[in-house]
């Protein structure tokens, strides 16, 4: 390992904590606090990866997790950023996207015939002649993508948590620190979020002044004040990956996704330093100025072999001073401009004996064959915008630090609806048009000098406080004259390889060619060329692309703009989005009884319901036995999932009458009525049974899946009608079982029932309240399955006791619990429809034989007029019963009814009936074919047409004698 720089350099490393690590199979000496990338550079290796398309060697560009050059493979996952990975957590990493070794990648040959791979190559080359794509696809798929997913990696526990604050500050650089402190001092609770491991942002590496001592102590004080403020919660290593309406921020922190809900939000996200576009600007060793400053200050890494600084602004000169102070040998400072803005910088450089080239650029970077990294640069004079003149100098160097300017980290602001406009004087994009309570501070807000940045932070905090009514303070004035952007740091070379977008290996000509092919809109340029699509999402490519497209299409940069910013800001693991399983499921109060009885569960909305009882392998036999028990003896089914709604009040009857289709005013107390709900469009949306407990009291059931909607609609209508009725959803308050079969009365009697159960005293469709086995219950005589039957509704805490009592009392009649499968078959034999299964989003009452339930003599009910209009128009389809012999192919739900080659309907229910010994079902057919004895053609599996007989409903017990016993 090469020596690290002495203290105070190396704020993030522990010098005495050696870490044994390996990269790509070779020993990599490192210190605790290093990232994989800093350890590699410290050991003298710049090459970390191979580029996506040309397999060119690449090294770190930003040292801040902002570029794709540092993508490496960890044992668990591909595409991790080496400049973010703590070496202690990731001691084993390898290079990815190589064939062979990192230093000798066989695919590097692609770089040499890259001119045969023009931009848009894939779109254009592989689709002709027709069909050839399939041949190419295999090769391309193998070459495409980076890294290897570890399919055997075990999932980690990842979850989500809300975090609440008054002000969320994104970015803990000088602007963010200043905003956080001011907001907290104003009484706000503050959440300060930063991706880095320490507070300070640029304060941790940039000097801001020739004599940096004053800045350093100011920074230390600011950081200490923020860290110790009781109203500031700090989240470092945290990535705010999006901005959503009303300041809802997803923040990734370790294995947790915080859902931050702030009352206002300050974006102090800073700016991305921009590269200079010249030939071979992608060589390992060519870095942004801030990257070199980070290496020196964070990791005490002082790369050897000579440094050239390429300056488009004064900041880069500061980098040269920092490097020189740290003992690096500065071969030259090259300034694209005619002079630095601050003449003192030139004087300082001269005083330190640095070679300075003014009005010049690096035109070509040279590469060492051995290290595959930078070995030197050719300096040319700049003659005009983007045009160079003669070679004026050559310097050997291992490091080139460059800064062509700064692009606001606009992603979050633009997600919030902000606009980017290009300021031609400053050659920079600026943001405007943010929603209320969203503030910008610092370099994202185009302020760059430290005093201005700190003041801008305080102003953002004031504005945030004002938006919450916590202050009436007015802003202090902020002026920032700093010109940080060079207007044209792009230098085309006849041999190309001047990279605009490192992720996607795009050069100047690739962007320009896209415009020549007609893709003038920057959005189309992006889609055609893939510029900005890589992991760095245009942080470095957007500005040069906008400039190139603007020039090529003779428009302003403002008109050209940048592509739309959408969340996430940086790639995120799907595990963060998936998080924990939160899939609500409902249990009946007696679910454990069903488990004990061997229930096989099936979903019904959020509910689990027993499908049948017994071994799954033997399902048909179990279902048949359950059906037989109900038809010949007695069965019991848990119907707790049925909806229940209670209506009480002097207007209860009038409400019922206005909401449901049937007449309810004269419904006798102690009787039930079938209750159908239609929508205002006249579509059947639910049905149930309405029991009248008293003149002013109804208890209505609704379907399992429909009750929430019915309840909602009831409340909404009564918000308009304003009748004196209390409407309560009591679905959960009551559990219910249905005891059905010829022996059901005997079982009920054996249970001990306070009600006279004789057919005269408690007839079919009757309703009673009484005690069953000492349990207070509501009893309804129902006939859904077509046998003598009683539905018992009991308060839910009693459900377990009731079930146990029924099973015990019913034992001598061999009572059998039955599930949804048997129930569906039993009701089908009776021809009863299930709303939602036998109806669809278009079904009106006439189509399913519910005309009788439409009371046309009463004044009005919801949907009445629509029902009338539909009833008066020619019918299109009719739900009919059909039967088939057992040998026929059994139609499935959804199979089509065909007439003369056209689809005229579909099967909605179909089962094998053990009672009737045939296949029975319900289907929509043409009204012409709806009479018993007609034939309808059903297209079954494999396209086989079967002719089914239309049958009168019900199939079973047509006189309804059995349920009325």
């Amino acid at each position, binding site marked *: 390992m090469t020596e690290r720089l002495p203290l105070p350099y190396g704020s993030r490393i522990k010098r005495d904590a050696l870490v044994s690590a390996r990269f790509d199979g070779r020993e990599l000496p490192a210190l605790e606090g290093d990232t994989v990338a800093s350890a590699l550079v410290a050991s003298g290796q710049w090459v970390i990866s191979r580029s996506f398309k040309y397999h060119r060697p690449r090294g770190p560009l930003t040292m801040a997790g902002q570029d794709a050059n540092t993508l490496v493979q960890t044992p668990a996952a591909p595409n991790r950023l080496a400049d973010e990975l703590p070496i202690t957590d990731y001691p084993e990493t390898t290079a990815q996207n190589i064939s062979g070794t990192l230093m000798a990648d066989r695919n590097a040959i692609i770089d040499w015939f890259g001119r045969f791979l023009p931009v848009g190559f894939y779109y254009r080359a592989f689709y002709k002649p027709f069909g050839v794509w399939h041949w190419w696809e295999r090769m391309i798929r193998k070459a495409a993508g980076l890294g290897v997913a570890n399919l055997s990696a075990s999932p980690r526990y990842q979850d989500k948590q809300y975090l609440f604050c008054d002000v969320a500050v994104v970015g803990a650089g000088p602007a963010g620190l200043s905003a956080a402190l001011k907001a907290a001092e104003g009484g706000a609770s503050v959440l300060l979020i930063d991706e880095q491991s320490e507070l300070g942002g640029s304060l941790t590496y940039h000097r801001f002044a020739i004599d940096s001592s004053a800045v350093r102590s100011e920074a230390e004080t600011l950081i200490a004040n923020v860290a110790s403020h009781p109203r500031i919660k700090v989240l470092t290593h945290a990535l705010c990956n999006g901005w959503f309406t009303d300041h809802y921020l997803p923040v990734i922190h370790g294995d947790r996704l915080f859902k931050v809900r702030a009352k206002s939000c300050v974006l102090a996200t800073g700016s991305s330093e921009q590269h200079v576009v010249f030939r071979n600007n992608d060589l390992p060793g060519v870095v942004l100025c801030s990257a070199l400053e980070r290496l020196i200050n964070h990791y005490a890494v002082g790369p050897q072999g000579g440094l050239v600084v390429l300056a488009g602004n004064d900041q880069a000169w500061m980098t040269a001073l920092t490097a020189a102070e740290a003992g690096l040998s500065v071969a030259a400072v090259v300034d694209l401009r005619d002079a630095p803005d601050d003449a003192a910088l030139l004087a300082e450089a001269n005083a330190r004996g640095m070679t300075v080239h003014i009005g010049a650029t690096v035109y070509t970077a040279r590469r060492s064959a051995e290290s595959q990294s930078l070995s030197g640069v050719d300096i040319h004079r700049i003659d005009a915008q983007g045009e160079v003149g003669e070679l004026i100098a050559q310097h050997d160097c291992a490091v080139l630090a460059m800064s062509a300017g700064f692009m606001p980290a606009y992603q979050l602001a633009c997600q919030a609806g902000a606009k980017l406009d290009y300021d031609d004087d400053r050659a920079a994009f600026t943001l405007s048009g943010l929603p209320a309570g969203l503030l910008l501070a610092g370099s994202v807000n185009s302020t760059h000098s430290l005093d201005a940045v700190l003041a801008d932070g305080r102003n953002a905090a004031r504005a945030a406080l004002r938006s919450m009514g916590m202050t009436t303070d007015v802003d202090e004035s902020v002026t920032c004259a700093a010109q940080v952007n060079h207007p044209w740091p792009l230098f085309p070379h006849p041999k190309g390889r001047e990279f605009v977008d490192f992720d996607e290996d795009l050069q100047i000509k690739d962007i320009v060619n896209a415009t020549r092919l007609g893709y003038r809109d920057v959005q189309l340029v992006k889609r055609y060329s893939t510029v900005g699509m890589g992991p760095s999402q245009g942080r470095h490519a957007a500005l040069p692309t906008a400039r190139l497209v603007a020039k090529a299409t003779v428009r302003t940069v403002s008109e050209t703009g940048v592509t739309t910013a959408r969340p996430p800001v940086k790639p995120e693991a799907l595990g963060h989005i998936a998080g924990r399983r939160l899939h609500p499921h409902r249990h009946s109060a007696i679910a454990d009884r069903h488990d004990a009885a061997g229930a096989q569960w099936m979903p019904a909305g959020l509910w689990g319901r027993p499908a049948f009882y017994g071994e799954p392998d033997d399902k048909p036999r179990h279902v048949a036995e359950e059906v037989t028990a109900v038809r010949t003896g007695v069965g019991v089914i848990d119907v707790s999932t049925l909806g229940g709604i209670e209506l009480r009040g002097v207007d209860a009857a009038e409400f019922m009458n206005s909401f449901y289709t049937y007449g309810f005013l004269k419904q006798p107390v102690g009787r039930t009525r079938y209750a159908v709900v239609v929508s205002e469009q006249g579509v059947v949306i639910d049905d149930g049974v309405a029991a009248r407990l008293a003149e002013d009291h109804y208890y209505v059931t609704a379907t399992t899946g429909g009750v929430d909607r019915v309840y909602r609609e009831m409340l909404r209508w009564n918000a308009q009608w304003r009748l004196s009725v209390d409407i309560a959803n009591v679905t959960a308050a009551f559990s219910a079982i249905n005891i059905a079969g010829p022996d059901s009365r005997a079982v009920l009697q054996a249970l001990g029932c306070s009600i006279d159960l004789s057919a005269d005293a408690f007839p079919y469709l009757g309703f009673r309240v009484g005690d069953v086995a000492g349990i207070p219950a509501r009893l309804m005589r129902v006939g859904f399955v077509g046998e003598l039957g009683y539905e018992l509704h009991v308060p839910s805490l009693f459900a377990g006791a009731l079930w146990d009592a029924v099973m015990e009392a019913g034992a001598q009649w061999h009572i059998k619990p039955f599930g949804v499968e048997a129930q569906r078959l039993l009701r089908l034999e009776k021809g009863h429809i299930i709303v939602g299964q036998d109806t669809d989003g278009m079904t009106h009452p006439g189509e399913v034989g519910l005309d009788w339930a439409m009371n046309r*003599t009463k*004044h009005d009910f919801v949907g009445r007029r629509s029902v009338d209009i539909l009833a008066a128009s020619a019918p299109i389809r009719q739900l009919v019963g059909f039967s088939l012999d057992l040998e026929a192919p059994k139609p499935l739900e959804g199979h089509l009814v065909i007439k003369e080659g056209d689809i005229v309907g579909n099967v909605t229910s179909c089962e094998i009936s053990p009672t009737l010994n045939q296949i029975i079902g319900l289907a929509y057919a043409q009204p012409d074919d709806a009479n018993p004895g007609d034939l309808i053609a059903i297209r079954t599996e494999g396209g086989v047409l079967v002719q089914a007989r239309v049958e009168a409903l019900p199939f079973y017990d047509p006189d309804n004698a059995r349920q009325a016993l």
Partner: protein
Amino acid sequence: MKILTCPLNGPRNIAEFTYGGQVKPMPNPTEATDQEWAHYVFYGDNHIGVVREWWMHTPSSYWFIVERHNQTDEVIRTYDPAELFDAGAAPATEPVAADT
């Protein structure tokens, strides 16, 4: 995620609410033409401006009215439906003899 202020429960995530469509006057169902009725049932206004909508706070089953600008998505006001519907809006009672 948008926050909507429920008149009963205060500001909450929009996920806590159920949308109930635009508030629109119902034509007299017995007197309207088929066209007028179909227009009421199937058509909604689609003008830029402030619209009046039904929203329900799901956990409390509380319906209220939202006035919202449909271009900016700015919520102007939320209030109890009693402001729009007084007790006189109830459907008329039917002739007694008609019940079955």
